[in-house]
C-alpha cells in the first residue's frame, strides 16, 4: 500500500528512463543521501567513521568498479588490488611532486593512469574468457605489487618502503594527512562515492552499459549486431580500473594514512570480488550492499561476543570471519546468484501489495 506506484503515470520516455522511476524510491534515496551527508557527521564518533563508514565508502567505490567489469561486462578480474595500488602510488607520486595541485584532481589523474594500466592488462580478454582471464588478471595483481615493492622510485626512496599521505588542503580544509579529521575525510569520500556511483548508473543504463551486457550475455550475437568486442571490453577495463584506482588512492589518503604494497595484496582483490558476488553481480546498489556487508561482518563479529559477555581470541574471530564469508558465498552462488540486490527487488515487489497476500 505504501509502496503502491498506481497513479504515477509516465508521459514521456524521459520519465520512463529515469534512474528511480517510482516516486517512493526517489524520496527514499534522497533521504538516505541527506542522512549520510548531514545526520551521520553530527552523530558518528571517530571510531565509527574510521573503522566502519570510511572503509565502507571506499570499498563501495572499488566494488562498483569491479562490478562494471565483472557484473556488467562479464570479464572476471582478480587484479582489483593491483589497480587500486596504481591509484594509490600514483597519487603519492603526483602529490609529492606537485604539492600545490588539488588533491582531488590528483585522485582523478591517478585514476586515469590506473585506467591505462587496466587497458594493458585487459588486452588478453579478446582471446580468453572466464577462469583463464581471471588468471591473466592475476598477473596484473602480482606484477604491480612486485613493481611497487621493487622500484624504490615509486615510494620516493623512503627507507621504510611505505607511502604516507602528506597533509593537503582543499579550499582551506585539511583533507588528508594526520591533521585531517575523520569527519572531513568521511565527507570527501562520501561526495566522491555519490558522484561516481551516479556516473556508473548513467553509464550502465545507456548505450555503453547495454553493449557491456550484450558482450556478457552472448558475445557472438553482440558482434553480429555491430558491437565490437575489443573496444567494448577495453572500455570496461579502463573505466573499472579508473574506479579502482580512485578507490585505492582514497584508501591511503582518506583512510589508512600510510601503507605499503601489502595493503593491496591478493586478499583485497578477493574481498572486492566477494562484495560483488554477495551484493549482486550487475547491480550498482548491490555493490554498495556487498561492501556494507563485508565491512560490517568483521566489526559485528568483534563486538558481538563482548556484548553477550563472551571473550574471544582475535585469531579465533578471524577464523570465524573466514568461515562466515565462505558460507555466505557458497549460499549466494547456489541460492541467489544475484545477491542482496535481488533480495531488495523481491522485497520491493512484496511491498507493492503489502499488506495483502496477492
Amino acid at each position, binding site marked *: 500500500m505504501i509502496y503502491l506506484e498506481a497513479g504515477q503515470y509516465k508521459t514521456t520516455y524521459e520519465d520512463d528512463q529515469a534512474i528511480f522511476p517510482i516516486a517512493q524510491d526517489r524520496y527514499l534515496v534522497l533521504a538516505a543521501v541527506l542522512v549520510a551527508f548531514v545526520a551521520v557527521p553530527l552523530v558518528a564518533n571517530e571510531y565509527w567513521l574510521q573503522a566502519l563508514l570510511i572503509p565502507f565508502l571506499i570499498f563501495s567505490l572499488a566494488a562498483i568498479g569491479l562490478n562494471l567489469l565483472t557484473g556488467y561486462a562479464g570479464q572476471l578480474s582478480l587484479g582489483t588490488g593491483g589497480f587500486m595500488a596504481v591509484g594509490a602510488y600514483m597519487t603519492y607520486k603526483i602529490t609529492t611532486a606537485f604539492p600545490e595541485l588539488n588533491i582531488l584532481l590528483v585522485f582523478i589523474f591517478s585514476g586515469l593512469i590506473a585506467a591505462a594500466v587496466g587497458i594493458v592488462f585487459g588486452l588478453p580478454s579478446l582471446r580468453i574468457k572466464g577462469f583463464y582471464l581471471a588468471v591473466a588478471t592475476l598477473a596484473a595483481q602480482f606484477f604491480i605489487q612486485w613493481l611497487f615493492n621493487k622500484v624504490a622510485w615509486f615510494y620516493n626512496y623512503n627507507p621504510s618502503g611505505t607511502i604516507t599521505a602528506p597533509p593537503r588542503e582543499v579550499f582551506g580544509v585539511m583533507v588528508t594527512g594526520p591533521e585531517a579529521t575523520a569527519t572531513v575525510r568521511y565527507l570527501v569520500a562520501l561526495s566522491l562515492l555519490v558522484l561516481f556511483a551516479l556516473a556508473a548508473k548513467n*553509464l550502465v543504463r545507456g*548505450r555503453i552499459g*547495454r553493449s557491456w*551486457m550484450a558482450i556478457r550475455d*552472448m558475445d*557472438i550475437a*553482440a558482434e*553480429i549486431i555491430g*558491437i565490437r568486442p575489443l573496444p567494448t571490453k577495453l572500455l570496461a577495463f579502463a573505466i573499472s580500473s579508473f574506479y579502482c584506482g580512485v578507490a585505492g588512492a582514497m584508501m591511503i589518503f582518506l583512510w589508512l594514512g600510510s601503507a605499503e604494497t601489502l595493503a593491496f595484496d591478493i586478499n583485497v582483490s578477493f574481498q572486492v570480488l566477494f562484495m560483488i558476488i554477495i551484493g549482486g553481480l550487475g547491480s550498482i546498489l548491490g555493490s554498495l550492499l556487498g561492501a556494507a556487508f563485508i565491512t560490517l561482518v568483521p566489526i559485528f563479529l568483534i563486538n558481538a561476543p563482548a556484548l553477550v559477555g563472551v571473550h574471544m581470541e582475535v585469531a579465533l574471530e578471524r577464523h570465524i570471519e573466514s568461515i562466515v564469508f565462505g558460507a555466505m558465498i557458497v549460499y549466494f552462488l547456489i541460492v541467489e546468484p544475484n545477491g542482496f540486490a535481488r533480495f531488495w527487488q523481491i522485497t520491493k515487489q512484496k511491498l507493492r501489495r503489502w499488506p495483502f497476500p496477492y
Partner: protein
Amino acid sequence: MNSNGKETLLQVDDITLSFGGVQALSHVSFDVAKGEVLAIIGPNGAGKSSMLNVINGFYHPQSGTVTYKGRSHRQMRTHEAAAEGIARTFQNIALFKGMTTLDNIMTGRNLKMRVNFLWQALHLGPARREEIEHRRYVEHVIDFLEIQAIRKIPVGRLPYGMQKRVELCRALASEPDLLLLDEPMAGMNVEEKEDMCRFILDVNDEFGTTIVLIEHDMGVVMDISDRVIVLDYGRKIADGTPDEVRANQAVIDAYLGLSH
C-alpha cells in the same frame, strides 16, 4: 541489375567453404534482388546456416566473393556487415538473457548512437537527447511487432515464441536493408507461425527490407517467398519461384521426397 530487371542488393559468387575435411559449401552462387523475399531450403547439414554466416561475415569462405550494395568483399567482417545494414536472427535464439526486452532491442540501435562515454556518464544534453530519440524509433518497432506488454520483462522469462519475436524486433531496430532469418518459425505452433509469417511479410512490405530466410516448413516457404534456393550437400541444386522449385525433380529427390 539482374535478368529480371530488378536492382541486385546482394550477389554471392562461387562461394566455397570448408571446415577441415568437411565441405560445407561448394561453388554456390546466387543473387538477391532488392526488396525480395528469398528462401533457402535444404536437408539438415546442407549448408544453409553456413551460407548466412558467410553473408554476414561470421565465416570467411576459402574462395568466392560476396558483393553487397555493389561492393565486393573477399572477407566481410561482422561489424562491417552490421554497419552496412545486414541484420540477422539465429536458429537458436541469441538474445541477451539478462537484459529486458527493451534493452535488447535498444542494442540494435547501438551502431547509430554516437555520444561518447563522458556525456553518457553525466546523462545530460546530447546523451539524454540521443537516448530518447532512439527510444522513439524502438517504440515504433515494438508497436509494429505488437510486443508492448513485455517491454520491461527480462527476455529470459519470456516464452519461446515471444523470444523469437523479440529477436526479430532487435534485428529490425537497426533499420537493416538485408535481413537474414535463420529458421524464424522453428518450434512454433500454428498460430505463432501465422503471426510470424504476417510480420515477415509486413516488414518486407512496410520497411522495404530484403529478406533471406531459412525455413523447413514447406507450406510457409511456398507461401511467403518470392524465390527459393535449394541447397544439398553444400551445392545449389535449384533456384527459382516456389512453383518451379516444387516441380524440380532434383529437389523432389533430395528433399521434398517422393510420394509413394
